[in-house]
């Protein structure tokens, strides 16, 4: 490995055009749930593709399971790898704002993905999904399809800004529709928690017309509980983020799972590709790039089904 490295450096020294090698550091949360797993999958694939297409680009990919470790990772990247650009999905906004600002001040290009920093204007490029539209799109569907007085239960994710924005969007879309949210609790984006929660709600409410599970992992748990109670005919379940099992059910026109809302984990690819393009081509890339949440319906489900994705 080292030999090859030395050889390439020597070769590069010989070539007439001084092709400077650029290093991109990527720091994302570890694969602790399905969506983050897919994030890792897409990040690795993009790095692989770009490394092949672009021998001058080097990548440092780290995954972290808590904000403290992410700060250390970032420091290591700057100190030992001398990165030219950073693509980071901050684990939490507040604790990472300072460290990322220092990196940006040192002249490194910073792309922030999905979770915004606590202060504006630090990053060069911001790539994110739209949490408000994620909730609003689902809420709009509920408002459009359900009758006035319909009863809905809502499973929230892990208590966080992301979750709050989604729920706010959902509630805003329901406003004035007469649809009643009878219960709302945290399923923590976890199948088992969602299963237990749904079981208990089914015991508690004789009438439920729809479930907003806000994430497909929770939708899987909720569906199993509804199935067990034999109340599948009574309600529909809308998850989110486009897990392939759910998309599969939608394209088969399953009445229990009529639609889904996207929140593509492949946005990390968008961020890495745009950063790499900015570094290598000089095309202007600064600004914000917001990926809208789309409604997956039986008609367009085929476009959202990715066979080899783990999610």
């Amino acid at each position, binding site marked *: 490995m080292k030999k090859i490295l030395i050889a390439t450096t020597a070769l590069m020294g010989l070539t007439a055009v001084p092709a400077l090698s650029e290093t991109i550091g990527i720091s994302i949360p570890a694969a602790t749930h399905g969506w983050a797993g897919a994030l890792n999958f897409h990040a690795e694939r993009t790095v692989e593709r770009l490394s092949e297409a672009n021998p001058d680009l080097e990548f440092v990919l780290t995954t972290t399971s808590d904000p403290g470790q992410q700060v250390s990772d970032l420091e290591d990247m700057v100190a030992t790898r001398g990165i030219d650009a950073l693509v980071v999905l901050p684990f939490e906004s507040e604790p990472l704002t300072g460290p990322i600002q220092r990196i940006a001040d040192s002249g490194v290009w910073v792309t922030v993905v999905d979770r915004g920093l606590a202060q504006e204007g630090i990053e060069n490029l911001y790539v994110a999904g739209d949490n408000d539209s994620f909730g609003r799109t689902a809420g709009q569907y509920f408002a459009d399809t359900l009758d006035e007085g319909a009863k809905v239960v809502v499973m929230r994710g892990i208590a966080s800004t992301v979750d709050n924005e989604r729920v706010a969007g959902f509630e805003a879309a329901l406003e004035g529709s007469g649809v009643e949210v009878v219960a709302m609790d945290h399923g923590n984006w976890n199948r088992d928690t969602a299963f237990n929660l749904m*079981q208990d709600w089914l015991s508690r409410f004789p009438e439920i017309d729809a479930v907003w599970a806000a994430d497909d992992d929770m939708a899987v748990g909720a569906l199993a509980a509804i199935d067990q109670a034999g109340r599948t005919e009574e309600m529909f379940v809308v998850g989110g983020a486009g897990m392939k099992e759910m998309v599969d059910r939608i394209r088969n026109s399953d009445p229990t799972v009529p639609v889904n809302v996207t929140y593509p984990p492949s946005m990390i690819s968008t961020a890495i590709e745009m950063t790499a393009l900015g570094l290598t081509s000089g095309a202007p890339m600064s600004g914000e790039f917001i990926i809208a949440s789309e409604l997956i319906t039986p008609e367009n489900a085929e476009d959202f089904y990715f066979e080899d994705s783990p999610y």
Partner: protein
Amino acid sequence: MSMATTAPTRRPRVNLAVIAPIVALIVLILIGMALNPNFLSYANITNVLARSAFIGIIAIGMTFVITAGGLDLSVGSMAAFVAGLMILVMNMLTESMGGGLPVILIGIALALFTGLAAGFVNGILITRAGIEAFILTLGTMGIYRSLVTWLADGGTLSLGYEMRELYRPVYYDGILGISWPIIVFAVLAILGEIVMRHTAFGRHCAAIGSNEKVARYSSVAVLRVRLMTYVLLGTLVGIAVVMYVPRLGSASATTGLLWELEAIAAVIIGGTLLKGGFGRVWGTVVGVLILSLIGNLLNLTDFVSPYLNGAIQGVVIILAVVLQRNTGAAR
């Protein structure tokens, strides 16, 4: 309250300690009945008992480990790893063997064996290499958790549809309206209680936990008994997984998260001493039911903000233990 009754007789104090967890359980049930008429419905009771089974089965094994003065933090991750491996192998076998009952039986055998082996690894390293149980199982906890994440490629391992349908009845069906997880949990609890009370193994666990040196001088095979407690726990983790996988047919990095702490909490609420030397399996069963019921009650009402669920659980755990320590500290 106990000041007035510091009478020479110790009997009533011990009795209070014995019934404390049961009192807590009854109070919870009464609260449940008052809050929601559906609380005592067949469906709700079945749900609560069946979902308690996983932690319950593991907690039975944990009772023996803790009684013998040990601890195992790895069981939650171990369960996730065993579940992941089981699903992976069953999916592979479905492709090569075409599915059917043999695949399920092999899957079950694999889960039991992997659990046993994992427990053996924990036990042998603790007893022969002399590593502190806390540190060693903290290490294996991380290892199993990473392994399942790696097996699942960061995502979720799901059992093939056909197998899931075939295996499903193991969680959802049963005899006379009592589902299998409840039956297995009940049978194991009764067996566990008998082993703890009426066999040499159970008494040896208590002897080692209360004083290892004395136990050794009394010719108790300390290392072997200790090892056996971990092997037993590992096997019970395997059984819990056999019951868990048919429920949702999937395993991921979040499977079994914090199960180890819930199991330990249940054991302690049930009256087993954390420092070892005394354990009771029926108490553990009550402890598991208390923990499940709290979650159930909070879901059945809007009484408390969902943000405070953890706080309520914490308060009940502490109260249940304080009640026992104050009344039966003599143990």
